[in-house]
């Protein structure tokens, strides 16, 4: 399974292809992308740092949880490190399942679990400084 930290741009199509399986009737690709405005402060770019040796086992754990909870699901997760431009994906999650309901559920589970557990840190870089930014509960980060 494709579960990894990379340094450099993510090939989204490659992550999507990694979940191809003949039993899949549904595929979803989630991209976490750099956002320009945070709390009214303009973000120029983002920088990510990872504990890669731990992050990959955490990704594998989450993928295993998904496979157990939604039998037949296939997952690929890639997070990049280094500087990321606004609008570029920092993390891509692809999920394929036999049916669409499971696909939405599994994809949602993946992003929430990764946000809560993946040992990766984000720095927002502004025109006049920078700050490390932690994740907040669902959808408000």
């Amino acid at each position, binding site marked *: 399974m494709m579960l990894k930290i990379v340094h450099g741009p993510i090939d989204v199509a490659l992550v999507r292809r990694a979940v191809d399986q003949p039993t899949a009737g549904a595929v979803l690709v989630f991209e976490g992308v750099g956002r320009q405005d945070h709390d009214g402060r303009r973000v120029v770019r983002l920088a990510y740092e990872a504990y890669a*040796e731990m992050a990959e086992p955490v990704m594998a754990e989450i993928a295993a949880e998904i496979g157990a909870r939604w039998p037949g699901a296939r997952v690929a997760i890639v997070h990049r490190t280094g500087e990321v431009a606004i609008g570029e994906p920092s993390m891509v999650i692809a999920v394929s399942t036999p049916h669409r309901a499971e696909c939405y559920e599994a994809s949602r589970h993946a992003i929430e679990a990764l946000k809560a557990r993946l040992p*990766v*840190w984000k720095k927002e870089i502004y025109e006049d400084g920078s700050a*490390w930014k932690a994740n907040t509960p669902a959808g408000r980060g």
Partner: protein
Amino acid sequence: MTPPGPGAKEAAGGALAVRVRYFAVLRERKGVDEEQVELLPGETLAALYARLCPAGPEGRLPVAFARNLAYARGDERPQDGDEVSFLPPIGGG
């Protein structure tokens, strides 16, 4: 005090040592991304963190503990040769 693990080696004086990894704001504060540290007898992860990263005027940064690439509890006692880390609030995704 828990006995040393099967792979334990003893440095001069019987001290046990761990590899400590630093990330993000802790890496910036310490100025290094890792170091080898001798453990005090019976030292827990929480105590090791307090010793290596003393609280400043703004208080101590809340962290999660990691030991051998998995989340761990602050009351766990690392063993000789372990890899440990104190994880600042995460921001992946």
